[in-house]
């Protein structure tokens, strides 16, 4: 009953060893409208093989719609989407794409009356994965997620975290090259969330391509190579570090022995982005601290100030995200 020629799967395995960056996901000017409402507007981004890309955005920003289009679940209004070298709008290609991707939806969507094993077995067969490898993979992922002992229990008796783990195992059971995860750690306890994050990091090491929708900024910062901030349109795409430079969130904090108006005036005279004081501490916001900090220190010393210490605080991803989304 299992397909004799799982072409997309073979393609995945052969291509996984490539070292030069290979585009796995190419999205160009993707737009999706529902009547007059535009859910996703002119979205453009690419993912290389092995990259983990986080899509951040408020509710209703179009994250789930984007994932559904990329998974060939719904059509696009305009633009182009390619997964591997396949076009999502081509019917035959869409079938091959579905075979090479795994989806962790925002709702786990498991069959509660069936056991964890039966759920995974069913999906593995629907993905036309070879039977022998399917059994090996079910065992591998259930063990990896600490669920092997409970494999025969109905999923309906599982906790939320356990169900989410089964959902993750379901997305992995056919060994997909590309993974789409829609808020995989939402509402989980810290331990379950950590297990899932660890698995994602393992997958990253295995060179799998992952698109991760998340609200968890700390998680995105820890897991993702690059982050895209989405609010119907893609507001920004970059590494977490480079995103920090996009906003005026970096500050140099200088601790003085004594603060006075003369020192403050000297610092303000250099026209930094912002100046805040707190006792003997002065925090100076600047566009390029590497270049501007020496001039600030010189001004303070020239004004008779004595510097105890100098440190730098970067903007958190939360600061960056909030600023970008509000803008």
């Amino acid at each position, binding site marked *: *009953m299992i397909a004799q020629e799982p072409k997309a799967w073979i393609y995945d395995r052969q291509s996984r060893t490539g070292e030069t960056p290979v585009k796995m996901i190419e999205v160009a000017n993707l737009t999706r409208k529902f009547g007059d409402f535009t859910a996703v507007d002119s979205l453009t981004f690419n993912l290389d093989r092995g990259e983990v890309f986080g899509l951040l955005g408020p509710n209703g920003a179009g994250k789930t719609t984007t994932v559904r289009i990329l998974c060939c679940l719904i059509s696009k209004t305009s633009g182009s989407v390619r997964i591997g070298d396949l076009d999502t709008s081509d019917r035959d290609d869409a079938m091959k794409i*579905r075979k090479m991707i795994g989806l962790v939806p925002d709702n786990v969507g498991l*069959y509660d*009356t*069936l056991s964890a094993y039966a759920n995974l077995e*069913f*999906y593995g*067969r*629907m993905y036309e994965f070879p039977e022998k490898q399917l059994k090996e993979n079910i065992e591998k992922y259930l063990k990896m997620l600490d669920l092997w002992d409970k494999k025969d229990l109905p999923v309906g008796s599982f906790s939320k975290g356990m169900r989410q783990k089964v959902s993750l195992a379901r997305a992995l059971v056919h060994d997909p090259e590309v993974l789409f995860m829609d808020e995989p750690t939402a509402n989980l306890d810290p331990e379950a969330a950590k297990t899932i994050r660890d698995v994602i990091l393992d997958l990253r090491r295995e060179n799998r391509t992952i698109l991760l929708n998340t609200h968890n900024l700390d998680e995105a910062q820890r897991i993702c190579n690059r982050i895209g901030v989405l609010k119907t349109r893609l507001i920004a795409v970059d590494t977490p570090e480079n995103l920090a430079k996009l906003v005026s969130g970096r500050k140099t904090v200088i601790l003085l022995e004594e603060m006075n108006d003369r020192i403050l005036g000297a610092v303000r005279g250099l026209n930094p982005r912002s100046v805040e004081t707190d006792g003997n501490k002065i925090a100076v916001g600047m566009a390029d601290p590497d270049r501007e900090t020496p001039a600030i220190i010189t001004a303070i010393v020239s004004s008779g100030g004595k510097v105890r210490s100098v440190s730098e605080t970067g903007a958190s991803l939360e600061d960056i995200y909030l600023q970008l989304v509000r803008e």
Partner: protein
Amino acid sequence: MRLWKSWILAKKDLAIMRKRRSLATAILAFPLGLGIALPLLIEYIIVRKSATVTIVSSLLGAFPFFFIILSALLPLYISSYGIVGEKTEKSLEPLLATPTSDGEILMGKYIGSFLPVLVSIYLGLTIFMFLTDLLTVSKIGHFYYPNLGMAIVYLLGAPFACIYGVSTGLFVSSKVNNIQGAYQIGAFSLIPLYALYILGEIGIVSLSSNTNLLIISAGLLVAVILMYMLSRATFNRESILTKWK
């Protein structure tokens, strides 16, 4: 269309059905109950009411029609569950994300609902025939069943009614969010069958006539084709994920 893919889905639905006792009980209890109750009713009429051979024969001719109605009613419940159940468990999205065509998924739902009901209906009909023959042979003087009318019900009426119920259930369940609602709305689609039964009772239509049974079966076949086309048009992943309630 790859039928083996539909079969995987149907097997999953059958496994869930086995685990849900109320569902499995409903599928078995009604046909088996009818298969036992109707012969006992006939026996009561013969013994207590001293019915004539003509009256008994007329009743025996009309009773199989109950099984046609039941063949349409039961799958309505199961197929409503098949889709609404997937919706309430939020399992439609991961299912639709698998490399399976809409037609294969729809066919899987058809098979998963059709098979258990038809098997159960055939069991009920067999018990009905056996018990009826046992209880009426002394009055009629010969075994009344099997006969041509029952063959039409077995081979045409019951299967077509069953597929009609499945199609209706699948179509209706795309419009509602709960199983009860789907079942109740779907039950309206059986009004023509109830009307036929009433017409039979008041003597306008003979439900024991083989010709009429053939015409009813043909009508059901046409309804099946129309409902399948409607289900097929409704069941595509785009509208399931963006328009279904």
